[in-house]
């Protein structure tokens, strides 16, 4: 019974320490746990595979450094797949720091593929306005983005040669950490212009986008670090997300164990107090 009491009154800092250990150890000594691929991730992969080489894929970097640990690995995995299939990638951002994160992603990707800026990809930079920007892209790309991020006129870039408006885009991939993000692309690019939208988002926001999958408004969804690890698994690339999933899984295991411990100790102590006549509602004074 002493153990149950200790468990109920455990200092929360011990839990923090255990979570830290559960995260750090698998990062130093990777376990190589397998990630099961969901239909949502597979659908995005299949869509990219089904497009003929040279198709125009718009990737919108709608996240900031705070969401980067989750969303950036999926950006890297998706871009790797696009360039492996010889697609043309048009990058833009509805979040101010998204364009700079795209620069960082492309710096890494361009070392692995024989790609040329302006011919195979372009970074159009950040444009404020959310829904209004997407709606304007439905009319004209050059009017919204007369120049790329570096100030080069987009008319001079071969990758933009036959891109007049959203209808010339074969697939939109939105990497989102909020709004403007997936909701904006779905309600404008999909609802008004019937474009195929794929999404990658933080785990916090993933549940609210599942209804879009059921109706087909989203063709697929990568949710959080797990979504990124799934995409890395499909393309056969052991990237950061796959490595981080070991730590994620062990940390989840610790959390689940302590949820079970807390509930078991709560019910044991409640019954004990009820037997002593202290009232069934009295619970442990657990700080955890």
């Amino acid at each position: 019974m002493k153990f149950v009491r200790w468990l109920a009154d455990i200092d929360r800092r011990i839990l923090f320490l255990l979570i830290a250990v559960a995260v750090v150890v698998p990062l130093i000594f990777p376990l190589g746990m397998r990630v099961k691929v969901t239909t949502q991730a597979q659908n995005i992969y299949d869509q990219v595979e089904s497009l003929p080489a040279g198709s125009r894929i718009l990737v919108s970097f709608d996240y900031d450094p705070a969401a980067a640990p989750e969303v950036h690995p999926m950006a890297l995995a998706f871009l790797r797949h696009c360039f492996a299939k010889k697609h043309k990638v048009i990058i833009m951002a509805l979040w101010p720091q998204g364009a700079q994160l795209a620069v960082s992603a492309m710096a890494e990707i361009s070392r692995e593929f024989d790609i040329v800026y302006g011919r195979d990809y372009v970074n159009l930079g950040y444009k404020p306005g959310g829904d209004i920007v997407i709606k304007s892209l439905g009319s004209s790309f050059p009017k919204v983005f007369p120049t790329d991020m570096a100030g080069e006129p987009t008319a001079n870039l071969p990758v933009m040669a036959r891109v007049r408006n959203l209808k010339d885009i074969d697939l939109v991939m939105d990497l989102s950490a909020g709004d403007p993000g997936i909701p904006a692309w779905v309600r404008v690019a999909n609802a008004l212009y019937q474009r195929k939208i794929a999404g990658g988002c933080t785990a916090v926001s993933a549940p609210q986008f599942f209804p879009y999958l059921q109706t087909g408004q989203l063709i697929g969804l990568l949710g959080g670090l797990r979504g990124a690890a799934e995409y890395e698994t499909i393309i056969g690339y052991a990237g950061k997300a796959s490595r981080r999933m070991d730590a994620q899984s062990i940390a989840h295991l610790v959390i689940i164990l302590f949820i079970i411990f807390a509930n078991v100790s709560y019910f044991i102590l409640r019954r004990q107090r009820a037997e002593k006549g202290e009232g069934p509602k009295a619970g442990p004074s657990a700080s955890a």
Partner: protein
Amino acid sequence: MDGLTLFGTWLAAILTLCILSFLYKDNPFYKFAEYLFVGVSAGFWIAYNFHNLLVPNLVVPLFGADGALPKLVEEGQLDLRLLTVIAGLLGITMLFRFFPKVAWVSRYGIAFSVGLGAGLAFVVYLQANCIYQIWGTVRLSPVVITESATGWTFDWGASLANTLLIIGVVSALVYFYFSKEHKGVLGATARLGIWFLMVSFGAAFGYTVMARISLLIGRMEFLIDDWIKGTLTTLGLL
């Protein structure tokens, strides 16, 4: 890793540890990092918005590269660049909120942006978040029969999923129907709706835990790879 990057990495690592120290208890190191973050963020966003919003959308279209104001009418045509003046004036009206006697002027700018947003969003919100979702539910059949090589088969999984979805949507909607007391069939359906809502909240909470652990992993990875391993590599010890 060059000297400047190493310095930046150490600074980021020390500030990360300062923030994480709050997990032990509130302390001056945490407070220092917190205030520094708030101050740097405010300064960063002011500078960022000036250079990325005001300059490219107001200053450059209005004055151009040569810094000259556009003429009101050029070759018999109204210079459309002057429209940015209206946008600029509407933006300035919002600053009137700082002066109580003329704070009412700010309503023009706010009214314009709210009206524009509402007008633009109304149709697309209705279509994407309401009509599509209703259509997504009413088209579901609780009985799904699929064709296979051996003939027609009853798809148990899909049928159960569709049935649960229909029951879940209807019962959750009933829970939010307050025009009649929740008794009898209505009460039972509403209670079922609570169960569906609780399951969905649980799933959302699970995803939230996953997200927070991911952020912790990101920081820990930075401390291990960039800070410790990066420093040891730069010093030639690894």
